[in-house]
């Protein structure tokens, strides 16, 4: 069971390493979108500080959507998804492994560049810390829920747009609590409430999303 999960993750990591172009595109997209705001709005530290959490979080959801459309599509096209579903191991582990791999490949780099982007928005150090923490709890949610959407829209024409419409509403709680935590830090109120709710939402996604993705994969393969 664990061996299967690790194989799924290792396989996706190796494939991503062989195709660094795709990986870099998603990272640059995130950095570019976030950087456009200070350029467009102008250098007003107070205003930038206020919008920073929301901007970073919205850019993170969009960047994850960019890569999610191909989470299962590539494997579907070359027939390897079929073979993986024919494995004696349960499809839930496949869906979970895929989501974990997606987070490792696309989520962790976001955490690493977020502090730099925070400086761009004149965020104080403590607020940057909370921003990274909220992204650390929140980006796995994006990968887990996104996998559901990717499985549901598999093989559909115009699946990418449909995926966006389907998944963005589900991202809303993560966005609210994630950005809310940083806002609370800036406003001087406690961050615990927002982070706890974000954590609860993460646990819920972790428990539910892989099952739904696995069921959706089976339906898409019929």
């Amino acid at each position, binding site marked *: 069971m664990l061996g299967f999960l690790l194989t799924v993750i290792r396989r996706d990591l190796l494939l991503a390493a062989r195709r660094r172009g795709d990986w870099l595109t998603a990272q640059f997209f995130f950095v570019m979108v976030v950087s456009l705001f200070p350029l467009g709005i102008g250098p007003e530290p107070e205003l930038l500080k206020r919008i920073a959490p929301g901007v970073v979080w919205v850019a993170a959801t969009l960047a994850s959507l960019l890569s999610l459309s191909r989470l299962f599509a590539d494997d579907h096209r070359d027939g390897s998804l079929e073979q993986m579903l024919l494995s*004696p191991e349960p499809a839930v582990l496949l869906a979970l492994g895929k989501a974990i791999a997606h987070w490792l490949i696309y989520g962790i780099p976001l955490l690493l560049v977020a502090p730099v982007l925070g400086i761009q928005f004149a965020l104080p150090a403590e607020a940057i810390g909370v921003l990274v923490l909220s992204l650390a709890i929140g980006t796995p949610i994006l990968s887990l829920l996104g996998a559901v959407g990717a499985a549901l829209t598999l093989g559909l024409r115009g699946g990418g747009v449909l995926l966006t419409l389907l998944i963005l509403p589900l991202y809303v709680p993560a966005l609210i609590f994630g950005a809310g935590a940083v806002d609370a830090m800036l406003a001087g109120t406690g961050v615990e409430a927002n982070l706890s709710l974000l954590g609860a939402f993460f646990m819920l996604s972790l428990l539910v999303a892989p099952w739904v993705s696995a069921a959706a994969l089976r339906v898409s393969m019929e």
Partner: protein
Amino acid sequence: MNPHPVLSVHGLACARGDRTLFTDLGFELAGGELLMVQGGNGQGKTSLLRLLTGLSGPVAGEVRWRGEAIAKSREAFHRDMAYLAHANGIKEDLTPLENLRFQAGLAGRGFDTDAAEQALRKLGLARCLDLPARVLSFGQRRRVALAGLLIASALLWIMDEPLTGLDVRGVALVESLLREHLQRGGMVVMTTHQALTLDGASVRTLQVGRREDA
């Protein structure tokens, strides 16, 4: 030997959209037998094979493996079965050997590098072992998929047009692989539009949909 047929199919019906492809289809297959599924394009050969693998569910009827419905004993069935589909299931960015390694890992099998190399050599891929599959030709990728089938050591092979893209020697190779597999007591369900010479093997045919000459 098990006196009961290992794979049995009862009253199977399949529909694609509104169109019924076949109804009340049944057969039994025991060790050492090959079932050749025949029928014209669009008659439901691939649909039947996908039903047999359990990838899709039938409208009616049941596929049984060792007397149990495959929907119930999915795990045991998939351990014994290997499916060669239209798409090869080969990742273009990985070498043939890496492809086989991950296939084995995903199927929950151990991986023997020497055995895998041997299988690839047997299929005439000795010079492509460390090239990414991207640069291989269509026929060579088919051969990689066949090598995967070979090291899967499954009892039942389900093969969808295994000969597409293969040259004359490749076809002869598949014929010898099939003969060996059947002699070991394995089972094969396959479709092909090409003639195969399988001397001495017990080959049965199954017509899906209307007969082409009717």
